[in-house]
């Protein structure tokens, strides 16, 4: 009985000690552009997580790469990945016919980045591709083809009427 109590105590103590340790390796808070911009002073200098779709232009510069990650309707954040941070291969970037890779980054958020002359940005310390991009459908609507044909036909008629020489040159 005494042995059982001792074992139980050790187990409970072990859990209590290990739990906070594992908590400190939990992911930094996943924030949106809106949250970061609205509460820029609060998050300034903190390590955060950010997730977004890679927009069209990955800009490779001398000292690192700039990515613009879109995380919602008209919200996107600039993420700087310095040369000494491992950058995975980004296979898809957004354009009309492609859905870009969704990337998860953790890094330090800057309200006014000194290195980048006052920019609001995140300097990534880790970059992972969460979801691979894909081809976008953008289907052609058949009814619009019909509309085009009808309108073009009418237009042709009106243009013919407009440009033809009047039979008896009557113009009021």
């Amino acid at each position, binding site marked *: 009985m005494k042995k059982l109590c001792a074992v139980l105590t050790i187990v409970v103590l072990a859990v209590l000690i290990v739990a906070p340790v594992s908590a400190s390796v939990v992911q930094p808070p996943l924030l949106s552009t*809106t949250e970061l911009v609205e509460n820029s002073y609060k998050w300034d200098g903190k390590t955060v997580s950010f997730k977004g779709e890679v*927009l069209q232009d990955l*800009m490779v510069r001398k000292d690192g790469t700039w990515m613009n990650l879109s995380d919602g309707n*008209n919200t996107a954040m600039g993420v700087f990945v310095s040369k000494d941070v491992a950058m995975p291969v980004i296979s898809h970037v957004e*354009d*009309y016919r492609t859905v870009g890779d969704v990337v998860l980054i953790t890094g330090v958020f800057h309200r006014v980045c000194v290195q980048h*002359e006052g920019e609001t940005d995140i300097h990534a310390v880790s970059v992972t591709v969460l979801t691979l991009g894909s081809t976008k459908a*953008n289907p052609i609507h058949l009814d619009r083809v019909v509309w085009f044909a009808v309108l073009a036909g009418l237009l042709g008629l009106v243009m013919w009427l407009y440009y033809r020489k009047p039979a008896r040159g009557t113009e009021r």
Partner: protein
Amino acid sequence: MIRRVWREDFRIIGYYTGLVTIGVGLLMLIPMTTSLVFREWASALDFAVSVALTLLVGYTLALVCRTKSTPGLTHAMVIAAGSWLVAMVLSGVPYVLSGHSESFLDACFDTMSGYTTTGMFLLQDLDHISQGLNMWRHLLTYVGGQGIVVLALTFLIGSTGGAFKIMVGEGKEEKLEPNVRHIAVLIWRISLIYLGVGTVVLGLIAMANGIKPYLAFFHGAYIFMSAWSTGGFAPYSQNMLYYHSSTMEIASMVFFILGSFNFALHYAVWSGNRREILRNVEIVSFTITVLTTFSLVCLALMQRGVYPNAVALFRRGFFQLISGHTTTGQSNIYARTFVREWGPLGMLATTIAMAIGASAASTGGGFKGLRMGIIVKGIATDIRKLLSPERAVVTGHYHHLHDNTLTDSVVKSAAVIVVLYVLIYVVGAIVGMAYGYPMADALFESVSAGSNTGLSCGVTQASMPTLLKIVYMLEMWMGRLEFLSVFTLFGFIATSFRSMRVRKAAV
């Protein structure tokens, strides 16, 4: 005595509006081609449908109203205001077809914003639109800016309003051609040369910053058109922040500063009269008000400790301020950052800069530097008159292309228009406040719309009240056309109703 409206008046207006509409339809071929080049088939089809519809409306109007009569001044004003509305509606069709506008009204808001070179937008998910639609948005501002300059200068030639004797070359050195067509050609030539230079320069900068060559020159074209027209659109929702490039921002700044200059000034400077740039009342006024409002902005930002060093203060602070003063509307900070970090004084200084605006006969908006200069000199002259002996003759002068006398009528014309601008700014602010927006925000956004700037502090959203959308659209329209055209249009409509009743009674 306002004259009666006859059927021929409708024909003239209809015919020329039809011609403008045909022009808009042909313009749509450019974004359609862009979409074809990028293999955006669905988008290309949307534009094809829009082209067909617009040309159909244009040709039908022109056919039905065909006339040989030449338009008078009244007609021209009504055509200007009226065709603006027709263009706004038809240009919105590609937006609606793309699925990125929540409503047709939202699409019209965006096209009104484009043509008036404002730059506010209600477009949803801007980061995922086609290259074709992006080309269309930016092209709208370029054409809108050019169109209005041609219009402005056309009216200014014939106008006897003292403040605007810009083009009258009564026995002066400048060989200013009084021919309207010639002026239009000159304006287009200067703008097209800058378009070429600007696209190449900005394209090269974009390439140097890591954008692929075949895309870089599209970015160059978009940013140039946005800057030169002082429109303020950018291909992505982050606006200039997308590029993370101070070179891009400085180049754009140069182009939008130049775009905010009076085209008569461009013409003078490009014809050998380079000294004009230092003597011109608008440039002097602009320089003074820019540096003053910027100093206020610096004061505000330093007091709040927003930026850590001079470079950041300059890059963010000056870009925002000069973008506002030239009524461009490009930005390298988030809209909400501006509101929350700059604070009331920073916002007010920017609001004042926007309200004053750019030069007359330019792509910019606001009171215009010419009027600021005239009013300030008018006040100075009045003070001098008071201080001088009663029998002394005191006359004020201002230099705009040549020395002009500051007559009472000149000062009055300037003051009247300034009052009208203040009126729309205030009315827009009141409507905003009535919907619960804080005063600084409501005033800022209203001035931004009325001065055709386009900087936003977050008020402009698809979810904003419908009436507020309409109010801003009216502000953009009236501000761009400087009231006269719009009033003439309304007057024309009212008079035509009266004329119809008179004719009915006579029958």
